[in-house]
């Protein structure tokens, strides 16, 4: 139990400080660690938890809460909640402390030309990481023609309409329940 809690704390605090461009960029590492290295869950379960976190309220990275919950579930519900808490704090606190302290000397270099360099360098890296995350999620979850079509329709809706993503995921769940059950 303590070992799992330490693993959660170590994994998510290191990912917290690597999430340049938002939490989604560290999904590939989160998947690799929870499925391949620590065996907390199967790939399918990870993708399920990720989808739940996307459809639920809160910052998109609440998937860490679910990973912590699942990792500690074998030790009982109370420890599972402790695991969720440890994972959530580890994901959100280190980056927040960094923002807090960086804010104090930000005034000194916010006009520096390097600021744009760093921003322009982060953008393609986070794009590549989101691409990798999308690849993993899609490869694990889309195995049939109907779900592939739903994914493509969802992509088109997101790109070409202003549909609310939560509403879209809810509708997709409903359609899938009616037709694919």
């Amino acid at each position, binding site marked *: 139990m303590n070992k799992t809690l330490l693993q959660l704390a170590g994994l998510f605090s*290191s990912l917290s400080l*690597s*999430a*340049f*461009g938002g939490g*989604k960029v560290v999904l*590939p590492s989160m998947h*690799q660690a929870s499925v391949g290295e620590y065996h907390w869950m199967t790939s399918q379960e990870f993708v*399920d*938890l990720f989808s*739940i976190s996307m459809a*639920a309220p809160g*910052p998109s*990275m609440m998937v860490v809460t*679910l990973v912590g*919950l699942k990792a500690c579930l074998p030790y009982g519900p109370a420890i599972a*909640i402790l695991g*969720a*808490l440890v994972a*959530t704090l580890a994901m959100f606190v280190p*980056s*927040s402390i960094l*923002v*807090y302290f960086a*804010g104090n000397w*930000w005034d000194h270099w*916010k006009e520096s030309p390097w*600021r*744009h360099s*760093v921003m*322009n*360098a982060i953008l*393609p*890296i*986070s*794009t*590549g*990481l989101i691409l*990798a995350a*999308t690849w993993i*999620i*899609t490869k694990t*979850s*889309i195995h049939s023609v109907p779900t*592939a079509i739903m*994914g*493509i329709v*969802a*992509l088109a809706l*997101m790109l070409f309409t202003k549909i609310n*993503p939560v509403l879209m*995921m*809810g*509708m*997709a*769940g*409903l*359609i899938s329940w009616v037709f*694919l*059950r």
Partner: protein
Amino acid sequence: MPGKARHPDPEEVAGFSPSTSLRVKVSLLEIAGLFCFIGLTSFGGGITAYIRRMVVTQKRWLTDDEFMPGLGLVQLLPGANVVGLSVYIGNHLKGPIGSVVALGSLLVPPFVSTCALGFLYFHAGHTADAHAVLAGVTAAACGLMASMVFEAGGEAIKGAFDVVLILITFALVRFAHLHVPYVILIVAPLAIWWHRPRPPKLKAPDTGDSTVS
């Protein structure tokens, strides 16, 4: 931001100069209320524009001159923008305790609802009904993630080398199975070097100052 013309929202024009630094009195309870609301209604995209509308335009807790540097800061640092902004705005209004209250209020309600959904999933997730619903939700989530690739790529790609950087990053994760921190340590120096400040004659088109997305 001197020299950055921006289209003002109609509601903020009258009697409001974005450069006046007025220290408004905001209670911790008000900060908690706002960030609770943001936490429960934020579902990713468009949230920074929404926070700006709430704290700058409607509540006038911060001026644009105070908000925009904060946004620029959190875009450069790791972590979700909404999380960084809660810390920045909380600190601006009430110091460290304001940061803690803002971050806590942002995270506690979603934490509770997410745990509840998690237990529901572990309890009933293996039924045929749950499988069917999740298959649809996940398919839509794939589409949503793919749209984020397009969105992020649209901002990132300013030249052919950016495409190379995207592909190197992808390959290091996908084929070399490297963890994200190592991938960043490898690719970031190359990317920063490529995008280093150049003399004006070689300067790439101005990409604009920390745009609200």
